[in-house]
């Protein structure tokens, strides 16, 4: 298991150091600094073995988080934990920066004591943590016995992500379908690979312990339902989408999804990521980039890029950006036919020149995968509101992921 956790600034000075296991000594702190942070070359691996001690690290802006161990730990778990640690810290004090870490070091130690015990990750849901790890240490004295046991049962319970007794005057929920389209296209316009990775983010402001059921135009579900009414199948069949794979927030009952493919859950309060998914079939590629690059002699490069949109004229794309790579030492860029919204951004890459692909950024108000939310039903049997009383909002945003055309 994790033997120790260190946080360093960009110079390699330790900001936080917490040791969980006896086999990790103080010298481990220095070993990482010397061998990784101060190493001359680029990082060649996120896992480093120095003198039979393994270091896992992640970097957030210029802060290094390193987990240390001498055992054969679950490596995936260690990284997931480090990311989670970053999330938790961000939820408590915002950006992870040297300043913020120093200002909150007492809090960080308190968190580290709670979410990692003898190197074993414990409940690390911010919702639960915030009920008893507060920046006012005094609070604990005023808690009643019920409050205390409510905290402990939430931290250890089956529904560790939600506390009981939440009340809203207006029950409301927001669903954001956020997709990023990834494309790699050859200079000849052939799609080398394309996929959409999407997320359904939910903001819930619901009272009590609401039981929710989420439905979308998943091909498998539609086909299963469509068996009875052939008419509907043919109509909705076109609109359904094939999902390659999806993963869910821990509130979703996975065994139910596995057996019935229904998505049911009791949501955490506030914002969370309900699911992630990936599709590769029938993707609507919002833009097509057609590059024409000519090297005229040894000192001149001629780049012509044509961009075509591929969606209804009534929809508007925003934040469009086309990055045309040019060598660092480019001078005298001549723009001949550039329309108003597009800016030309010379690549400012530290890397040596190797003609990187032309990339695009954009945002469109639809889901390029074709995903549609069909329903989100809310049941709260104990409280006095029904599915109809809940105000629901759905929004679709398609963004560019890595949207590249080689040239």
């Amino acid at each position, binding site marked *: 298991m994790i033997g120790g956790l260190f946080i360093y600034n960009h110079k390699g000075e*330790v900001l936080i150091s917490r040791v969980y296991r006896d086999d990790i000594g103080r010298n481990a702190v220095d070993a990482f600094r010397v061998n990784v942070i101060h190493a001359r070359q680029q990082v060649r691996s996120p896992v480093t073995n120095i003198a039979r001690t393994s270091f896992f690290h992640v970097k957030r802006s210029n802060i290094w988080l390193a987990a240390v161990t001498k055992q054969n730990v679950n490596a995936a778990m260690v*990284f997931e934990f480090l990311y989670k640690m970053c999330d938790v810290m961000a939820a408590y004090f915002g950006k992870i920066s040297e300043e913020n870490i120093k200002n909150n070091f007492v809090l960080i130690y308190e968190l580290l004591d709670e979410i990692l015990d003898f190197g074993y990750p414990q409940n690390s849901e911010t919702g639960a943590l915030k009920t008893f790890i507060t920046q006012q*240490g005094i609070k604990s004295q005023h808690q009643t016995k019920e409050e205390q046991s409510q905290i402990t049962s939430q931290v250890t319970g089956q529904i560790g992500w939600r506390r009981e007794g939440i009340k809203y005057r207006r029950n409301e929920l927001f669903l954001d379908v956020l997709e990023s389209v990834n494309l790699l296209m050859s200079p000849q316009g052939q799609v080398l690979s394309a996929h959409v990775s999407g997320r359904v983010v939910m903001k819930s402001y619901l009272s009590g312990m609401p039981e929710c059921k989420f439905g979308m135009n998943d091909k498998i579900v539609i086909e299963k339902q469509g068996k009875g009414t052939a008419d509907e199948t043919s109509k909705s069949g076109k609109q359904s989408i094939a999902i390659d794979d999806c993963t869910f927030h821990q509130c979703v009952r996975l065994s139910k999804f596995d057996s019935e493919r229904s998505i049911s859950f009791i949501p955490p309060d506030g914002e969370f990521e309900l699911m992630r998914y990936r599709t590769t079939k029938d993707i609507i590629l919002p833009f097509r980039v057609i590059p024409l690059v000519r090297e005229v002699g040894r000192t001149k490069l001629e780049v012509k890029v044509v961009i075509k949109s591929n969606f209804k004229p009534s929809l508007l794309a925003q934040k469009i950006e086309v990055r045309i790579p040019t060598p660092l030492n480019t001078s005298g860029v001549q723009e001949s036919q550039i329309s108003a919204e597009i800016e030309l951004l010379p690549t400012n890459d530290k890397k040596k020149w190797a003609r990187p692909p032309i990339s695009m950024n954009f945002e469109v108000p639809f889901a390029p995968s074709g995903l549609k939310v069909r329903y989100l039903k809310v049941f709260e049997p104990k409280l006095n509101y029904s599915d109809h009383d809940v105000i629901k909002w759905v929004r679709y945003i398609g963004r560019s992921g890595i949207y590249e055309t080689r040239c």
Partner: protein
Amino acid sequence: MTDSKYFTTTKKGEIFELKAELNSDKKEKKKEAVKKVIASMTVGKDVSALFPDVVNCMQTDNLELKKLVYLYLMNYAKSQPDMAIMAVNTFVKDCEDPNPLIRALAVRTMGCIRVDKITEYLCEPLRKCLKDEDPYVRKTAAVCVAKLHDINAQLVEDQGFLDTLKDLISDSNPMVVANAVAALSEIAESHPSSNLLDLNPQSINKLLTALNECTEWGQIFILDCLANYTPKDDREAQSICERVTPRLSHANSAVVLSAVKVLMKFMEMLSKDLDYYGTLLKKLAPPLVTLLSAEPELQYVALRNINLIVQKRPEILKHEMKVFFVKYNDPIYVKLEKLDIMIRLASQANIAQVLAELKEYATEVDVDFVRKAVRAIGRCAIKVEQSAERCVSTLLDLIQTKVNYVVQEAIVVIKDIFRKYPNKYESVIATLCENLDSLDEPEARAAMIWIVGEYAERIDNADELLESFLEGFHDESTQVQLQLLTAIVKLFLKKPTETQELVQQVLSLATQDSDNPDLRDRGYIYWRLLSTDPVAAKEVVLAEKPLISEETDLIEPTLLDELICYIGTLASVYHKPPSAFVEGGRGVVHKSLPPRTASSESTESPETAPAGAPSGEQPDVIPTQGDLLGDLLNLDLGPPVGGPPLATSSVQMGAVDLLGGGLDSLIGGPNFVAPPAAAVPPNLGTSMGSGLSDLFDLTSGVGTLSGSYVAPKAVWLPAMKAKGLEISGTFTRQVGSISMDLQLTNKALQVMTDFAIQFNRNSFGLAPAAPLQVHAPLSPNQTVEISLPLNTVGSVMKMEPLNNLQVAVKNNIDVFYFSTLYPLHILFVEDGKMDRQMFLATWKDIPNENEAQFQIRDCPLNAEAVSSRLQSSNIFTVAKRNVEGQDMLYQSLKLTNGIWVLAELRIQPGNPSFTLSLKCRAPEVSQHVYQAYETILKN
């Protein structure tokens, strides 16, 4: 002012000032001071001198302050053990606090203080906390047992904490269960034989239930623990797999990888014909692909694991090539791993796409990546024959770029392409020679020299080229020197007239002016060869060499199997077993995949059981003399002629390889003397699978330590029938492994050597698990005792009688055949105890016509003794009843092929005759089971 100020105090006399502040009356000031102490501790300053002052602050209502003091204590208690005792009272008191958060905090912290005296005080509070009404306290206490065990293992055992911890596996709270599992797994790792985690179908069921309810981390602990379990048969394996697959949709990648580990492991037990097997394979691909959209560090872990999975089961991801295409902004460690997997997945179907990608990568910036991409093109050529031509032309294009390291890498791989497809692409040699001057890396120079030597007859100026290298002979690396020597000798043999001077020059450089033993020895070998018999030299040096194999750098199969058991962990990232990087005994238990134990065929449909093979078809009991002889001789050693014996040795070391090939053909002469049988490479006699299952048998048997009855040795093959070789033997079963104990006596007048043994196909697939090891020649009148381990994974054919075993033994004189009957009880397995309910159900289920009744006469034992004696031979008493003065024993046993036999033994006190009723779905075995009863009870 903010807290960051604490990090900046560097003035002198600081400790003194802090001391004063810590003893201040004002609470706020105290807390500030403790914060400063912790900040100093963090940056590595020694603040241990403040120990008593900080501990004084411990008694406080302020939880935040208390936690800070605890943090300090955990850091310095070990250096100040005597003073740490001062803290004990507070801990003990806190463990009684009405607030569960404080109780847990106290027990959590106490476990982290590694001071013996404190540990003693910890036991009572810990015992209470393990049974605390609040789950938060219990889950903390569970981990505390592991902490305590790390400090003082004996204490934990003496205090009975292990049993309490085991009870927590049945706790109602899922997080308590998860932490208990984590703690037990860790403790069990340091006691590999303790059977601490006593996993059985009931406890597995509990774990699977908790799996659905606990936190993401808890799910990981449980899945990692499940992966250590070995289901009893394929049906149990399948039902666990079914309950684990939903985890593949979890957002946490570690949960997904741990689930993949369980599935990959248990899949070993499933038959490939099963529909479910195919379904499972299909279910594994999407989540593995999804892992590639995680953060880069996790992608790296995932890719290292996918690399293993692709080697173990290539079918899972064979259609997913595209997802491994490298993205421009991937970190270099992700790029390199993706490239590796692309090569492994390359096939005729996708080679065009792969090559286009690789060509693109070869123009990238990162030198390592570009080199690997170029090398990958070469590997594709070797792997997919149809693409070789295209690969070669791609490589030539790359050479035209004149980028130095690209050219060198391309030449190294072209050399390998020549070794795979000789005499096919030598048209490119001219282009290669143009780049001779730019080669500055030893590997590339050696590769180029090898090509020149190999194709010397087609390169007009080969002598000039090689001569140019010779000028700086002593400055070259050994690799280049060796290659140069060989190449010039080849050249000489091909064009002797013009190159005599050159060869003399290189031979003298190698033998007289060098002190490198490899170089000198090789030089002398060539020299003598050339001077003794130039014709022979030509045959040796220019002999046709075996082609290099398709896949290089595959992980060795046993290591691969072991690594599959470690999916998700560091071992899978390093591609090394834990023992290679973990100190001490911790976590280095060797793991292996479970063998396939099918239950369905034998218990469900007796007609397909091996014993049920149509008895009319009783063909060539012993195959014709010639066949078997041939088979036996195949056991013999020596590299298979024409095969690629050394092809797996590193591709780069062309020189060594060449020599190896030459030596082989040298030895292959008529005077070839077979080395003694003891030198038979162990993997010739046993398949990899059987080796693994042996290991498994051993581990599963540990703890039960049963030793079945062993009959005295009987003469199986009299000396007069076997030209003086007398064989007697018997069968034993001990700790789950079967062996044939043999006694070989040489009653002839000549020495016997080269022993080998083979079994004919038989009813239960008995086969030798290792070659017959007779370590020295057997001289006249000498006797050796050998224990030959057996397994039951050999081919199956019904014999008459059922337990007949036909054996062939070979020695330097002849091949001999004999047959013997083995007692059935050597096939009774250790886990043959049936659950009571199951027994009842099965008894009813088996039709009455399958019941057979026997009388066991003259047995003076009572029911107790009978039961215990049978148990040591793996016949288990499931229940005992007394009906009208008679003792009824209900017993079960299981054969190695999964057949269950149920028995009812009626014993009347005072009457030496017992009645035995046997029920089995394969009634043919009943007679032999009865005989086994007789043998066991009467001896």
